[in-house]
């Protein structure tokens, strides 16, 4: 052990480190090595476990990173600031394209005749908001592509920025294209023909009346969806939980999860595809005409009170239970 420590000290002396720092490091290593020996490390393997002294010295003596700027100013709660107001052409398809990182985005309805965008707890200069050809675009300027958002998440200091996008009542939304990392997304009282949502850890809440095709890709965020009618809904999650309620679907409902659970309540559709690895899928008052169920170890259980026929197209499970019960 002493040889290793002496070698280490010699190697460290060749770097920019001060004597005090060097002794501090050597002391840390003495303690760690002793802890390791007590826990049964073979003295012969010290270098193996703790590394070559030269690489270690290079790593420790290398120019240090600039210390981060002082702790983020915890800004006092700000009020909503309007950052955009636009005339929407109701003769043409109206779309909204949003690409953000951590921001909460709320889409909602307004009595106003114009489309209004507001920001809360954030710096408008970090974003680009534009309205062209009847398409509203909102983008975090630090974001472009995966790598961009990689950096964006690093740079963005404020955590609770919120955008409110208010759509005039008379306007139908042709499409919402929403990409986010950790920010939550909320859609309230909007009729949307096409909805594409992609998020990593943000939660998604959708409350609508008439929805068309909805496609959601999530990783660890949760999904909570309630609507009156929809055409097609397709979502895939890794570990996030999903709840789908009160929807009459004209066509298909496609759901896939790895470890997240799925709850379905008061939903009817034509065909339903369910695929789960270890997540449980529970259906109550769930009436698909046709259903294909697949699970590795998760349970899939459907419990209904009305005796409507459900045609089972496929049913496959490794160790999970698959049950359809009619009272």
């Amino acid at each position, binding site marked *: 052990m002493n040889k290793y420590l002496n070698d280490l000290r010699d190697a460290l002396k060749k770097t920019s480190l001060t004597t005090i720092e060097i002794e501090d*490091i050597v002391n*840390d*290593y*003495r*303690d*760690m*090595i*002793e*802890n*390791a020996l*007590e*826990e049964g490390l073979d003295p012969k393997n010290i270098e*193996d*476990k*703790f*590394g*070559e002294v030269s*690489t*270690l010295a290079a*790593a*420790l003596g290398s120019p*240090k*990173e600039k*210390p*981060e700027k002082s*702790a*983020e100013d915890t800004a006092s709660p700000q009020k909503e600031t309007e950052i955009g107001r636009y005339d929407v052409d109701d003769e043409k398809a109206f779309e909204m394209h949003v690409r953000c*990182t*951590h921001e909460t985005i709320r889409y909602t309805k307004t009595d106003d005749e114009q489309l209004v965008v507001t920001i809360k707890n954030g710096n408008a200069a970090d974003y680009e908001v534009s309205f062209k050809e009847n398409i509203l675009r909102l983008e975090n300027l630090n974001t472009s592509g*995966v790598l961009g*958002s*990689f950096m964006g*998440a*690093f740079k963005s200091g404020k*955590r609770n920025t919120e955008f409110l996008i208010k759509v005039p009542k008379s306007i139908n939304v042709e499409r919402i294209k929403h990409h986010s*990392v*950790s920010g939550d997304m909320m859609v309230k009282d909007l009729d949307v023909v096409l909805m594409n949502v*992609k998020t*990593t*850890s943000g939660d998604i809440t959708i409350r609508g009346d008439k929805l068309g095709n909805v496609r959601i*890709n999530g*990783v*660890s965020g949760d999904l909570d969806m309630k609507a009156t009618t929809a055409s097609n809904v397709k979502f*895939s999650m*890794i570990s996030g939980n999903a709840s789908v309620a009160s929807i009459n679907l004209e066509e298909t409902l496609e759901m*896939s999860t*790895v470890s997240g659970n799925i709850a379905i309540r008061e939903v009817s559709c034509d065909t339903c595809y369910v*695929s789960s*690895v270890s997540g449980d899928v529970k259906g109550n008052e769930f009436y698909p005409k046709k259903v294909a169920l697949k699970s*590795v170890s998760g349970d899939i259980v459907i419990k209904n009170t009305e005796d409507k026929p459900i045609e089972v197209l496929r049913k496959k499970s490794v160790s999970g239970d698959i049950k359809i019960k009619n009272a």
Partner: protein
Amino acid sequence: MDAQFKRGILELCVMSMLAERDHYGYEIIRELSLVVDVSENTIYPILRRLTKEGRFTTYLKSSSSGAPRKYYTMTQKGFEHYVKQRETWDEFIGGVYHIIDRGGKKIEQIFKRFARRTEKDIINDN
């Protein structure tokens, strides 16, 4: 693996362990070396740098059998940093998964695809 990339991942691992609870130096090295190859020891420099940057603090605790243990604790600043790093990671790995899933979501499915593809190739070859 690219050294920079590996360092980033190790840093995230170290922070994750400390977000869970306080750990002493060798404990971190030992646990991490079970899952990743850390023989080129990059752990201690990470601990030292993050401590210097105020993300961790340390305290000594004597152990029953000899050398004291230097425990590392995550500070509020550390937690803030961790959340950011974690977000970056989640975004990255999430994007990667969206693509990887295209190869097949489960091994079973990949095998099936493989069988089907190679079958086709044989037919084409004939």
